[in-house]
């Protein structure tokens, strides 16, 4: 069987000897190589090597897993802990202590379970374990318990780790879809953009074969498939360097969820940028199935809005996690789609056409539809970069994060590319505050205090108002970690109360009123902008300062 030649059709049936290949072991090795390498080229090499030798059925699962199609979690972490306790006889406080040090449940379990003897190790494929896992999903807890414990007993530590990661639904790995696509492109002779298109959309790894997934016929029959998104880089230099302003189309940068709206064969599909099919979450869009022409794909923003005016992102958050959308959500957080690009029209791929051509067609399609659920993303008119800069300063009033610059003659590219699309965001809001609690992080930050809670002053008191985990260098994190270990006042479970001494500038994108937080505010995208070595705790901002910001920016 030659993988590189798609004319040779391989079905599941003649891949019968797959059980002899140590599929899970190969996968565990892949995961450990991917997580220890820091260079994209090394990751690409590991994946390419893997795709060259792994069983076909496992490859399908790996593509699924790395593109976010994990099996739904069917075993709670509580049960896994209980079973581990039964086997090891460790008290639960000791488990907690270990968990807090390791920072990862799947790894803690893998380390605590007794090592499997060499002669008891069994080679099975990744797809075997996942298929069995799905088949016991609906069965009694005792059946699932037997399956999991027996599986543990066949595996070494690394295999248990990936297995636990998969069945607790916490599998995450630092590999971009682009790298997966490029590795596949080295294995099968197809262009990356064709592969990217084919592995997107809704497909089930347990019923899809490797060749079925990556064959021409398969993509023709799936009407739901979105195109890969084109993503912009942040503009870090002055816009003057971009040349003539007239060559650029500018729109607001909306603060919602990037999405693709597809109508094909009289069905409507809405995809998020994370390639999650979200059609059911937005009943507002259903009517568009009748109003949009068939064979059309739009790129735009899923955003809460009233009369075409966007509401803050926090409004969208109130309904995004819900399985069922009720009347209350539809009234309080009405959703619109701000369309800004057209990728397919009359079943033809329009991505190679210029933005100007696509925009013209987009207007022809959208403008006649006069309902709140869809709106065209307005073009900002400007004649000079200076004028645009002034307009951009009003972004917050528009509930927008800045502006998008798109070259008029550009085609619609795949993935994040420099040159034709830029996001020009406004500077974040900032506030100076003091760290009061710290907690250990997870992953590469395990056993290191990296998750902090910050407070502002309210008279003589300190009021916690946000957490932040990012923005410091590794060196700074190590310094703060050292401080936390030496300046802990109290310990509540994993949280340490620390001496309020280290002052940080927190940057954030937005502020909203919140009754779930003691401070009465919730921040959007808070992160540590700077460690203010020059400031003491007496010089930090106050709760009144925060409230002032809320009244100005938090509508």
């Amino acid at each position, binding site marked *: 069987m030659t993988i590189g030649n798609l004319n040779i059709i391989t079905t599941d049936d003649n891949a019968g000897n797959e059980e002899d290949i140590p599929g899970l072991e190969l996968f565990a090795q892949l995961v450990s190589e991917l997580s220890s390498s820091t260079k994209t080229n090394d990751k690409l090499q590991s994946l390419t090597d893997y795709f060259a030798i792994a069983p076909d059925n496992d490859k399908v699962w790996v593509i699924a897993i790395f593109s976010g199609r994990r099996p739904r979690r069917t075993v709670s972490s509580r049960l896994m802990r209980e079973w581990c306790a039964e086997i090891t006889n460790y008290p639960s406080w000791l488990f907690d*202590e270990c968990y807090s040090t390791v920072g990862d449940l799947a790894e803690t379990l893998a380390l605590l379970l007794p090592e499997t003897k060499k002669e008891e190790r069994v080679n099975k494929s990744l797809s075997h374990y996942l298929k069995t896992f799905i088949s016991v999903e609906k069965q009694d807890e005792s059946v699932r318990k037997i399956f999991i414990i027996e599986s543990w007993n066949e595996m070494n530590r690394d295999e248990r780790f990936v297995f636990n990661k998969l069945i607790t639904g916490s599998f995450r790995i630092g590999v971009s879809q682009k790298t997966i696509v490029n590795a596949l492109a080295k294995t099968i002779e197809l262009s990356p953009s064709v592969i990217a298109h084919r592995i997107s959309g809704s497909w089930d790894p347990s019923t899809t074969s490797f060749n079925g997934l990556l064959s021409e016929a398969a993509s023709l029959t799936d009407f739901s498939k979105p195109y890969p998104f084109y993503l912009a880089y942040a503009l870090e230099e002055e816009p003057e360097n971009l040349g003539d302003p007239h060559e650029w189309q500018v729109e607001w940068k909306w603060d919602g969820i990037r999405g693709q709206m597809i109508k094909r064969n009289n069905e409507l599909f809405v995809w998020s940028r994370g390639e999650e099919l979200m059609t059911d979450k937005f009943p507002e869009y259903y009517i568009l199935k009748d109003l949009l022409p068939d064979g059309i794909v739009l790129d735009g923003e899923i955003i809460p809005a009233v009369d075409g005016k966007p509401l803050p992102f926090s409004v969208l958050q109130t309904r995004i996690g819900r399985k069922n959308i009720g009347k209350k959500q539809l009234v309080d957080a009405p959703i619109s789609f701000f369309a800004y690009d057209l990728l397919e029209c009359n079943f033809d791929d329009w991505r190679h056409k210029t933005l100007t051509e696509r925009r013209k067609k987009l207007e022809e399609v959208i403008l006649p539809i006069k309902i709140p659920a869809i709106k065209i993303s307005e073009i900002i008119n400007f004649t000079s970069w200076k004028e645009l800069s002034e307009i951009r300063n009003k972004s917050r009033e528009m509930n927008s994060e800045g502006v998008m610059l798109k070259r008029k003659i550009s085609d619609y590219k795949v993935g994040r590319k420099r040159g034709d699309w830029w996001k020009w965001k406004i500077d974040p809001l900032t506030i100076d505050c003091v760290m009061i609690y710290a907690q250990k992080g997870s992953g590469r930050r395990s056993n290191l205090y990296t998750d902090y809670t910050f407070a502002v002053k309210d008279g003589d008191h300190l009021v916690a108002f946000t957490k932040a985990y990012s923005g410091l260098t590794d060196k700074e994190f190590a310094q703060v*970690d050292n401080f936390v270990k030496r300046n802990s006042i109290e310990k509540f479970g994993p949280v340490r109360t620390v001496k309020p001494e280290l002052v940080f500038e927190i940057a954030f994108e937005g502020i909203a009123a919140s009754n779930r937080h003691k401070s009465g505010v919730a921040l959007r995208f808070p992160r540590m902008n700077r460690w203010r070595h020059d400031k003491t705790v007496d010089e930090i901002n106050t709760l009144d300062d925060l409230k002032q910001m809320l009244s100005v920016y938090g509508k």
Partner: protein
Amino acid sequence: MNNLITFTEKGLYCEKGDFFIDPWKAVDKAIITHGHSDHAYFGHKYYLCHTDTKPILQLRLGENNYQTLQWNEPIYFNSVKVSLHPAGHIIGSSQIRAECNGEVWVVSGDYKIEDDGLSGKFEPVKCNTFITESTFGLPIYKWKPQQEIYDNIINWINKNKENGKASMLLAYSLGKAQRVLQAIKETTQTIYAHGAIFNMQQMLIDAGWNIARVVRVTPETPKELLRGAVVIAPPSADGTTWMKKFTPYSVGVCSGWMQVRGNARRRNVDAGFALSDHADWDGLLQTVRATGAERIYVTHGFQSAFSRYCNEKQIAIAEEVKTQYGNEEEELTEELPKNKNETII
């Protein structure tokens, strides 16, 4: 009841014998378990240590008033009978046994159970009270047999050779480096070393140890010689310009902390080998049981978890103690910037 050994702000103190064990402030009489810097401080008027530890102290602390003992060779401080017993941690590392009026206390220093062929085979010593380290006192720390880890290191070196990369092994210059060098000396003709490790290795060879010879990397060492070389350096060399010379290279860290993935990822190492000179969880428990001690004090490491477990499982009456040990294999965290009012517990 007066304890034979008490915990003072200068370190572990035996009042009846008027001596300290591994004190971290200058004292008159110090008994030193082993040569790591968090146990062997500068400035004492008198040092007692194992014969094999003396050259290490001389290298690190210079000339001092040293007295040495062999293992099991008794010496009296007033009415207190003191003897040293192998701790298996590094060359010369010893447990300190102190006996007075039939009551026996043992201070473990740092120890490991597995015999590395250099440090002497660890012997549990019967006692009433055992003061134990707990660097890796959580059940997530269970070491693989050293041969398995050595094989992994050798495979990694061979793989790097195939890919034309140098193998940069990071290991503490005293202890881990000698152990790793013994394990890999057959894999390659020449092993290159950072100056810190070269000095240590040379000193031990001069002291009569039959251990692997290494070649010091100097600014004059031609780059061509280093292509695909095997190099050993202390962890502090990581990320310095010294390493640039070996490009392209792959970094492998030999440390018990590598047991947890996050630690290896945080340090951006290409390979982590969980090779430790400390006892793992099972080793600590096994040792506490073997000493027959009814009471234990648990120092540096996961002291609260380990002592609580010993109490709950009625292995011994355990109490945790804070000391200033444990910076030697602790991950190297950065110091805070100066101008802050530092408060050190």
